[in-house]
Structure formats: structure tokens, C-alpha cells
């Protein structure tokens, strides 16, 4: 009986699978995403999203230009605005990118590639999170510069925590479904939850936002960032294997 010797490709695949089984996911999330970024490149990663980025920057520019009126309107509620707006930037950019892909019905081909829609979404989420945190930091700096460094730092971390907290819900949602309607409902729930919290438990809300030591805000931010990284990693690896496309 003649047994054919495996091809070079079959040997390499077998080695790769064995190594991965023995040392599963040893590559850190950031290293993996960095490799993914170099592979896909900014142009493809954010394809069709440049207009959205510009739109968001324009909206912020408008907000800054109307600073005087804004600060009068916001008296006592500026923190609520920050908590609501920062995830809104994150959500709107991602929502429209998902909408665009759904309209074109490109998932079927993209999901059978080495890097699937989920990998791309994970990297996009990270980039969009960074973008909205940066934009909010600039916004907060302009809005709260006069209130001193402590308030500014508090506000920056508050907005960044809001982004990560929201993105945690977002990732959990995406693990179940990437249907557009759920994403809209998620932001609706975030908005409603925060406004109700502010109205029904004003003392607790006030305390959490203004009175808690800044160091706790910083700690919470790091905690959320860590959980977010873990969730993102789970999201990618879980979905990159044999999953139904649920759009």
C-alpha cells in the first residue's frame, strides 16, 4: 500500500494547529490587533467612515463655537451631557458602518475570510473608542478649563469611562446579534437609564459624578478598560470560530 506524503501546506497547517492547541491565544489582544491593523490598513478598516468622522468633528466644532450658550444651558448638567455624548459618538460611527455593510450584504464573503467581520469590528471599536475619548477630552478641556485641573481630569475620565462602559454593553450585544435595531435600542436604553438615574436618584448620581475622589474615577476607568479588552478578546475568538452570521 502506498501512502502519499503530505504536501508542504498540509504539514504547515498541521503544525500551526498543533501549536495553537498547545499554546492557545498566547498572542496578546493588542499585539493581535496591531497585526490585524497592519494587515488591513486604515483605509480598509474605516472604509466609508471618513465622512462620519468629519461629521462628528464638525458637530464638536459647532458645540465648541456655541460654548457660551452651551454652558448656560448646561448649568449643573454638563456631566450628564458628557456621559451621554461620548458613547453617542462611538455608537453613531459604528452604527452607520454596520448599516452600510448590511445594506451591501457583504457579510457572507467577509465571514469566510481569515479575518472576519468580527475581527474588523473589534479593531474598529477600539479605534472609535480612542477617537471618541480623544474628542471628548478636547471638548472637556475647552468646556471645563476654567473650573480647574481636578474638574477637568474628572470629566475626561468620566467621559472615557462612559465610552468603555457603553462599549462593554455593545460588545455583549454584538456577541448575540449585530442587528441594527438592537444597536439603536441599546443607545436608547443608555440614554433613558442615565436620565432616569439622574432624575430618580439625584443624590447618588451627584455623589458618583462630583464627590467621588478622582482617583476612584481613574481606577474605574482602568477597570473598565481591562474588562473591555477581555470582552473584546472573547468576542473575537469566540466568533471567529464557526458561527452563524446573524444580521
Amino acid at each position, binding site marked *: 500500500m502506498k501512502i502519499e506524503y503530505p504536501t508542504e*501546506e*498540509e504539514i504547515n*497547517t*498541521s503544525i*500551526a*494547529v498543533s501549536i*495553537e*492547541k498547545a499554546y492557545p491565544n498566547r498572542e496578546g489582544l493588542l499585539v493581535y490587533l496591531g497585526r490585524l491593523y497592519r*494587515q*488591513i*490598513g486604515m483605509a*480598509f478598516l474605516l*472604509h*466609508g467612515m471618513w465622512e462620519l468622522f468629519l461629521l462628528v468633528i464638525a458637530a464638536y466644532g459647532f458645540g465648541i463655537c456655541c460654548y457660551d450658550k452651551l454652558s448656560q444651558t448646561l448649568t449643573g448638567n454638563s456631566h450628564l451631557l458628557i456621559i451621554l455624548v461620548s458613547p453617542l459618538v462611538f455608537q453613531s460611527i459604528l452604527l452607520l458602518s454596520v448599516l452600510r455593510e448590511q445594506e*451591501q*450584504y*457583504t*457579510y*457572507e*464573503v*467577509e*465571514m*469566510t*475570510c*481569515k*479575518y*472576519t467581520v468580527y475581527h*474588523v469590528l473589534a479593531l474598529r471599536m477600539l479605534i472609535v473608542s480612542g477617537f471618541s475619548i480623544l474628542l471628548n477630552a478636547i471638548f472637556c478641556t475647552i468646556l471645563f478649563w476654567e473650573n480647574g485641573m481636578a474638574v477637568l481630569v474628572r470629566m475626561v475620565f468620566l467621559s472615557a469611562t462612559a465610552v468603555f462602559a457603553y462599549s462593554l454593553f455593545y460588545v455583549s450585544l454584538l456577541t448575540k446579534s449585530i442587528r441594527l435595531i438592537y444597536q439603536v435600542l441599546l443607545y436608547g436604553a443608555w440614554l433613558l437609564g442615565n436620565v432616569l438615574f439622574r432624575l430618580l436618584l439625584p443624590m447618588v448620581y451627584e455623589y458618583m459624578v462630583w464627590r467621588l475622589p478622582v482617583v476612584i474615577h481613574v481606577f474605574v476607568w482602568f477597570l473598565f478598560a481591562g474588562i473591555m479588552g477581555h470582552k473584546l478578546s472573547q468576542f473575537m475568538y469566540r466568533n*471567529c*470560530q*464557526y*458561527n*452563524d*452570521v446573524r444580521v
Partner: protein
Amino acid sequence: MLRLENITKKYGDFTAVADIHLELEQGVYGLLSPNGAGKTTLLKMIATLMTPTSGEIIYDGKTIQELGEHYRELLGYMPQHFGYYRDYTAVRYLSYLAALKGMDRKTAASRIEELLDMVGLADVKRKKLKTYSGGMLQRVGIAQAMLTNPKILILDEPTAGLDPRERARFRELLAEFAKDRLVLYSTHIVSDIENIANRIIMLKEHQLYCNSTVEELCQTLEGKIYSAYMEEAAYKEFAKEHFVLSVKPERNRVAVRFVVEEQPESIGEIVGKDSKAVGCMQEQYARDWRLEYPNLEDVFLYIYREE
């Protein structure tokens, strides 16, 4: 190479694919069945787009879940409804998919040029996809599936929208490509696969009906396919009693191709004096009767005659 072990896919009470067991080696496999028999569901499970309700898909001894991205690296897939970015050019779209498929830019660029040339889109490669005709888009879809020279190529109705010349060109391209590879080609256009498929897989009532060569399938109908010329009135009577495969009107008569289950002793048994149709038949048509060699389309129509 690829083994499907008792694959079942259910949606609530509805079973789309039931208990399919297949072993697929290198070569072209034509997946043939009428619409709604479960072809696309089966292909989607092999392409990792759907999870079987039960059963496993094994490639080289490992489940495709285990293999994850290593399996997808070996995969080329062209879905039935091919999505694309309207504002992309063919080159840009293929470059994007090449990036997702993990190809390095230099290799991707030369492969894209080669493929666009092969599918006859080299002249329009810088035009936006929204300006392409259905056939041109279909060819982009074919090109993307072949980008990485995949070991497993899954094509779901790839020739839909292609004109006969493009279909012939595609068959040529596929025949060349299929060497040392596994190609799963789903279609309900029998002529597309008759000459290039090494084996034909047929699904019936969501189950595997057969996995045979074209020759084996045709043999099952050998001696049962006949053709004859009849008058239209005679044909109407005749069709009530026999399974007619095709009818072609010719001046004042029709050419009929049909199946006879039992081997007839004479023409008279079929279209002659003993037949119910005899009263309507003219003697001259009986002379035109002849036994035909079955083709895959006959087999397809015969197997799915009740559907």
C-alpha cells in the same frame, strides 16, 4: 480530505438538511437539486457561516471549529447573493478581501491582476462596481473566491446571470483551477456541471439522495429514454400516461423525449397500436421513434419528477 458526519440543520421544527454523511476528496463535486432542497444551507455550513444543529465537519482529521482561521485560510466561497461595495472598483474590492484573507499586498496585487484578466474584467478594473452589469459582478465574485488559490472552493450558483459564452469561459477556468483542489459547485443548471463534475451530489427532501459519477447516474436510466414525433393532440393524450422529459414543437408535430419504466418489446407498446394514444397517432411518426442515451438532465428531471 473533508468529511461531513451526520450533518443536520434545523430551524425550529423545520429540517433544512437532514443527517448528511459525505466524504469529499479532491475534484469537482456538483451539488444538484431543485431550489429549496438544502443546497445553500449545506454549503453555508461547510463555509463556516452556519452551525449544524448536530453532526460535525472534519477537515484532515480535525473539526473545522478546531481549525478556525486555519480552515478559513483554505477556503474560497462565492455566495448565491454576492454582496459588494458599490463605490469600490474591482481592484479595490479584491484588495480589501485579499487583506481580510491574510494575503500580503504584493502577492495580492499580482494575483488580482491575473484573476481580473482571467475573468475578462481587466479593461474595467478601475471602474466602480456600481457600474457593472450582473454578469460582470458575478465574475468579480468568482475572482474573489479564487483569490488565495483555495484548497476548498465553494460556489453557490456561480453562473447565475452569466451569458452562455461567459458560462463556457467559467467552466474552462474552473476545470483548470480544480486540479488538486476540492470544488463544491451548487447549481440547478445541469449543463453547467455535466462535463466538469467528477461526482454529482443530489439532495432530495433535504437528505442526501446520491453521490455518484455522471456515468453511474446516467446508467440508471439506460434503455428507458426514448424520443418520438407526435401530433400535438396525440402528445396531450400521451403525456397523461408517460413521464415526458422534453417537448419541442416542430411545424405540425412535436418531438417528445420521455421515460419508459419497463423495457418495451416494440414501439407499439409505447406509441403504437396498443397505446391509448394510438387513435391520434399517425403511422409515419412511429418510424421516427428511437432509443436515446440518457443525459444528466434526464436523470435530474426523473429523480425530481414529483417535486
